[in-house]
């Protein structure tokens, strides 16, 4: 846009602004001030221009001057941080503060499950009685303020059982998938999968990932690992003929929305663990955990406990591998593989 066009549109405002006078002047038939740079001066300006070191992106890597600038900036920043740290000690002290990430970053072990812990994390709160699913009657402790209260003893018991399942599956080298597609569950899901050495889905379960897995997951990479989970690249070409992988255990944090997932798991005979609130159908999952699935704290706690259980299972698996014991049936990949071990008692 040409600047002088402003004149016709916003002439009244511009008239009052003094800095625009040069633009207006050309509309009056008086001498306009034109910049009187000539060709020669333009060339001179180029040659006389002092070289100012500008810290550009490319200059950051190898120029010494930018290195020194960088160093100085880092020093100044760390000094400022130190100051903040020093001054933070002054004044009042806040104790016993709630740190929301603590439950996710450092979840309790299954052995540490107490009713107080469960209560503190709101696992007992069910739904309004009108939304009750009668299949949960056995888990319900009572009614308070129009909502069902889940029996915490049962929650603890079922949670321990689920933790045991997760631990055993992890110990036997099964693939454990954590699914939590609700808003805010992402962090807990990823952390639990990380602890377990398992897998996570936190965005959307693509329908058909199990029933039509070759189409949907066919292009995703797989690898062959030994008992220590170290990759064996020489076996990689044998993978191509094999179909997509299916999880050996699915932990579903929101069974209410994951009907497709649970249906597919049922079709493929994949055992599932689910948080069953009072409005959910407990028959949709293999191992229900009666608990509140609407509170992020409750979900984080349960996912964390299961993650810790999986961590323990993984530890057991590695220990047995160190002893040279493969606690599960190894995969058969063609003729290099000799007779399977009869020893794997309860392989998943």
């Amino acid at each position, binding site marked *: 846009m040409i600047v002088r066009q402003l004149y016709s549109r916003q002439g009244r405002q511009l008239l009052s602004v003094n800095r625009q006078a040069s633009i207006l002047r050309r509309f009056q038939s008086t001498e306009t001030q034109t910049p009187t740079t000539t060709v020669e001066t333009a060339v001179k300006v180029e040659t006389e221009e002092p070289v100012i070191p500008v810290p550009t992106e490319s200059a950051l890597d190898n120029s010494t001057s930018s290195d020194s600038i960088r160093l100085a900036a880092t020093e100044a920043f760390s000094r400022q941080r130190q100051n903040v740290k020093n001054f933070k000690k002054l004044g009042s002290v806040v104790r016993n503060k709630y740190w929301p990430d603590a439950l996710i970053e450092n979840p309790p072990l299954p052995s540490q499950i107490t009713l107080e812990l469960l209560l503190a994390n709101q696992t007992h709160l069910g739904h309004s009685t009108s939304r009750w699913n009668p299949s949960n009657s056995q888990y319900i402790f009572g009614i308070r303020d129009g909502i069902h209260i889940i029996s915490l003893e049962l929650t603890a018991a079922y949670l321990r059982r689920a933790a045991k399942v997760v631990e055993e599956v992890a110990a036997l080298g099964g693939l454990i998938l954590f699914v939590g597609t609700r808003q805010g569950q992402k962090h807990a899901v990823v952390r639990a999968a990380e602890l377990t050495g398992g*897998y996570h889905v936190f965005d959307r379960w693509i329908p058909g990932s199990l029933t039509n897995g070759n189409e949907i997951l066919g292009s995703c990479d797989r690898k062959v690992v030994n008992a220590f989970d170290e990759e064996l690249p020489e076996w990689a070409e044998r993978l191509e003929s094999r179909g997509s992988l299916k999880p050996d255990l699915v932990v579903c944090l929101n069974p209410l929305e994951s009907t497709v997932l649970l249906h597919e798991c049922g079709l493929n005979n994949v055992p599932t663990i689910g948080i069953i609130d009072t409005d959910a159908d407990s028959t949709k999952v293999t191992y229900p955990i009666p608990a509140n699935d609407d509170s992020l704290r409750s979900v984080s706690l349960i996912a964390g406990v299961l993650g810790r259980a999986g961590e323990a299972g993984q530890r057991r698996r590695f220990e047995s591998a160190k002893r040279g014991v493969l606690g599960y049936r190894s995969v058969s990949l063609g003729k290099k593989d000799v007779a399977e071990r009869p020893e794997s008692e309860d392989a998943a």
Partner: protein
Amino acid sequence: MAWSSSNCVVHAMQSIRSPTVLRALLPQQSAARPNILRKVSLLPTPLQQRTNVRNYATELQPGEVQAAAEIDFEQFKARPARIVPVSPSYFSGIPKFYDHLLQIERLLAQHTTLPTVPPSEAPRRAWMKIAQFREHLGEEVPTKKYMGLLKVVYRLNCIDPKLLPAEVDAALQEFVRPGNPLGEKPKPRELDGMGRARGKGKRKESHAVVYLVEGEGEVLVNGKTLNEVFPRVHDRESATWALRCSARLDKYNVFARVKGGGTTGQAEAITLALARALMIHEPGLKPILRKAGVITVDPRRVERKKPGHMKARKMPTWVKR
């Protein structure tokens, strides 16, 4: 029952069995016969079997039987145990994308307290377009998800460049378009062999190409003089505004080709093209031209008409019945 009660038979059997046991152990000890493929030899099963066997010290000749071989962990390690996905996001269908997302979100959480600069001062990098990113990963990433990813990338890029950690820089480089078009400056354009500078410009529906040579101030547009092409004096001034504001009107000759659009669009397309051509002749004029607004591209176009509207926005009069 007669067998079990008869001691001598049992003893006889034992004496028969012990050599077979020994015979079974023998091949393991012989280094001359490497049988690496035999998984049996790796496993501790023979040891266990041997523990079940009741031996008699008198039957065994000292020196004949040796201790079992060590467990060959190298063989154990080379044996495939499981097939697992490479990425923990395997079941999401687009694992590489989620791995990238989680990685840069982790970096952001880690470095979120670092001081930032305004987006306008952040280093300019050309991020990958969605098609390029899909090709790069080999996954059909939805556009919306990639935009969400880029938001995190923009935020990381706003960290003060002087304090940008190396790992963040490396992670951001993953998303930079190959060749980094914005990073390296384009080669400055030059006059051609006949002393012409060529500039292109667009405005509304018009496209203009201007050839600028040194001269006396003659202007030809599509082979016609300026007054034939632009009856309005305002349009003529617009078209030559770059030369006018830099007081170069009598120092150059202009030959312009312009097509499309109406008179205003054509005139202002010539403005832009002329200013660009002038910058080839005299790069030092850039601040003046920038201030005059002639090298600023006006990207506005006619807004499309919508169904249910009479024009782009105008609605038909509302009638009650």
